[in-house]
């Protein structure tokens, strides 16, 4: 609040005080910003020299100083690897599926919850739906595997008892089911937690607007589309931009655990799992760094691109 008053006074006087003076006036605020900035500097900027490894044949024993420089060798190997296109395709497809289904899902849940009038019911649903977020993937994948198991798996038992299938389906051994399982599990795990932000945004919408719309004869659906959604659009766009920036992070733990069956590698191998398997597990640190750097650069490009597109709507990050 103090910040805005400052700004107002500045604009009124039309005289721009020196940087130092402005800083002095907000020293208390600046002090609060300092620790996070320091944190980012120490843990995000300083380790960045590690990308140099991508251009070396890095050896653990020699370190940076002793390892030979090899230019773009590891990038060439990565682009030329037989798995490259499969990995890229899987990464993009799984990400897009997660974005297409996983992104709107919490918004829909938030809208639905917002319409629930029974407070107790609403709280119970909210709590139950965000709990899975706190379970680790090891546990969740354990659930999923036992539910989908052919021997006494509950999904197969249900389908059999409903006479939909005769023989149990070995879900986790058939490539065609993998993406569905992955996306469904991801949505189930994160939908409740992600909806909290949207619920908060919806709570900030002025109730008078709803009342006025109701007076004009707008029904529930009309109100959602004409008032609630436009009102929370800025929040949605910010989250969408961030999601697009993360597009190449198709997932790691979930795929590693659910897709352990080698049969699924054609559909389940994404950039992160590939880097982990070929790079880290075989001590090919330079190769892993090169692939990681490639992914990060694309991620930055996507983020900038998404932001540029969003700027036209006036809701960009910067």
């Amino acid at each position, binding site marked *: 609040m103090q910040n805005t008053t400052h700004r107002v006074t500045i604009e009124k006087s039309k005289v721009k005080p020196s940087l130092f003076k402005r800083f002095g006036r907000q020293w208390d605020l600046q002090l609060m910003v300092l620790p996070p900035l320091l944190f*980012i500097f120490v*843990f*995000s*900027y300083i*380790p*960045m*020299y*590690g*990308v140099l*490894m991508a251009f070396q044949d*890095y050896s*653990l*024993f*020699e*370190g*940076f*100083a*002793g390892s030979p420089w090899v230019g773009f060798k590891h990038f060439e*190997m990565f682009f030329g690897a*037989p*798995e490259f296109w499969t990995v890229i395709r899987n990464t993009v497809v799984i990400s897009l599926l997660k974005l297409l289904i996983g992104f709107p899902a919490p918004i829909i849940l938030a809208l639905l919850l917002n319409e629930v009038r029974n407070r107790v019911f609403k709280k119970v649903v909210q709590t139950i739906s965000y709990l899975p977020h706190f379970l680790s993937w090891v546990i969740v994948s354990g659930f999923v*595997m036992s539910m989908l*198991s052919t*021997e006494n798996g509950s999904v197969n038992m249900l389908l059999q008892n409903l006479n939909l299938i005769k*023989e*149990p389906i*070995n879900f*986790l*051994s*058939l490539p065609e089911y993998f993406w569905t399982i992955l996306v469904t599990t991801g949505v189930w795990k994160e939908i409740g937690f992600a909806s909290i932000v949207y619920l908060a945004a919806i709570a900030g919408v002025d109730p008078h607007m709803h009342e006025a719309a109701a007076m004009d004869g707008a029904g529930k659906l009309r109100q959602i589309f004409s008032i609630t959604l436009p009102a929370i659009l800025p929040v949605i766009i*910010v989250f969408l931009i*961030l999601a697009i*920036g*993360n597009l190449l*992070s198709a997932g790691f733990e979930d795929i590693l655990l659910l897709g352990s*069956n*080698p*049969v699924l*590698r*054609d559909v389940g191998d994404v950039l992160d799992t590939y880097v982990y398997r070929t*790079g*880290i*597990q*075989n*001590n*090919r*640190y330079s190769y*892993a*760094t090169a692939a*990681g*750097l490639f*992914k*990060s*650069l694309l*991620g*930055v490009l996507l*983020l900038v691109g998404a*932001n540029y597109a969003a700027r036209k709507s006036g809701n960009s*990050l*910067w």
Partner: protein
Amino acid sequence: MKNGKKVFGFGSALLALTLAMTGCTGGGGSSTVSGEAKGGEGSTAEAAGNAYVLGEQPLEFSFYGHYDWYTMPNWGEDKASEWIKANKKVNVVPISSGGNAKQKLSTMIVSGELPDVIWTERGADVESLRKAGALVPFDDYLDKYPNLKKWAGQETIDMLRSEDGKLYQFPNWYTTQPNGNAGYLVNKKIYNDLGAPSLETTDELYDYLVQVKAKYPDVVPLEVGQSAGGVDIMTSAFAENRPYQYSSLSMKAIPSGDALTSVFTDEVFRETLVYANRLYREKLISQDAFTQPLEQVEQKIITGKAAVYVASSPTEFGAIGNSILSEEDPEAGYIMVWPVHKEGLDKNKIFPGTYNQLGWNVSVITKSAKDPEAVFAFLDWLTGPEGQRISMWGPEGLYWDGVDEEEAPKFTDAFTSDTKGRDELMNSTVNLQWVGNTVYVDNSKMKFESTLPEDKKSWETKWQSEITWKTQYDTTEFVNLNPAGDTNEGIIEQSVGEIYEKAKAQAILNAGSEEEVLAILDQAEKDAQQVGYAQLLEYKTQKWKENLEKLGR
């Protein structure tokens, strides 16, 4: 607010950028490891004339087991190490891998803080440590301390030598006689219920599994274990003198004449997968073979929900299952059968298991050790008869008292009467068996078992002596064929390994007919050749020939 967003957005972009790399950043420390030979030479020179006597001076060293699953028990908390600590003044400080061994070792290398002893697999990791000059050679100690030389033998020691001709690795469970448990476990109750049919050939096994499926719908007819490892074992049924190791993921090379050839074109491997695929399609093997966790396999075995179990060590769960099941019903339990073979082959030339003289893994002493000779002296004592007796069966007077003329312990009555206490003691030290002496331990055990009446004999030892030890194949000549991960061949090895894993799983799980199985393998061969399989096989052949030379075969 606009500014805040900017910082946030920019920050998160950078965060994303760096997150991908933080896992790979080293401390940038240069070759501190090789430079840290702390006074090792001095003490060695001093002791050159007279050997280090264990127990005169207190000895303390740090020990790191390079495995995700390994947590060293605290030294001195069990009866064996308590005795060693009190009488030999040896204290071992554990360094834990924290469930992430690879990362732990990398961190220790980069920071130059290597443990005194590393317990790990033979091969690439040891070689890279040696090349960096981080390891202490044992050659000067070999003659001064008698046990390793005596029990492992010259051949094994020569096989363990590195490229520079020196010995850096102290073997664990090395042997000169066959050992191992691989084979076929059969559920006794089901077997007798079905009239105890002959289970000698693969066709008979198939018929039996069909009967099981018809009569016991809730039982897995053939359990093949985690990642369908049992299918690997079964390749041994389709040819004589053919250990499964040839077509396993770790070797992937079939000796043919004087060269190693592709696994995908190998008739035996192809025939096995056709057989396994048929069993899978007819629901005769565990349907989630490639996804089930080990605990699930264990549950099936100890509750008697599997009719046949084929694995590289089925006795482990079999022994537990046998005692649980037979307690409830004396007719229930497990037996083992002579390894299955394809019609027309000689059953005495079927080898489902393998052993090699070098044993399982090795301990290396790093230059961080203040007195490497003292550490070697301790390991040498531990692998000798006295060290083995105490670490296996506890201090003298408890389960054994005195030794015979061959230094085998004379077991007391408590050894058979107090089985619970004995097993507890043996389980408490199982993770302290770093330099196991197979020949000494097995012979001591067998000697004692042979004096026992039939009903007192341990289930495991019975089958080991009757079947499994007779059906293990010596594969010493095929050790250390694998290249280091960051070399050209290592990269090929990894690619071919992935092709192999995928093809095997597809052939078993998803192929609808024999033709499809073969088509998958043909495709795999093509893919493998494309990533340079031929070059890898050449490398392995070269290594194999070097081994043969060392072994004088």
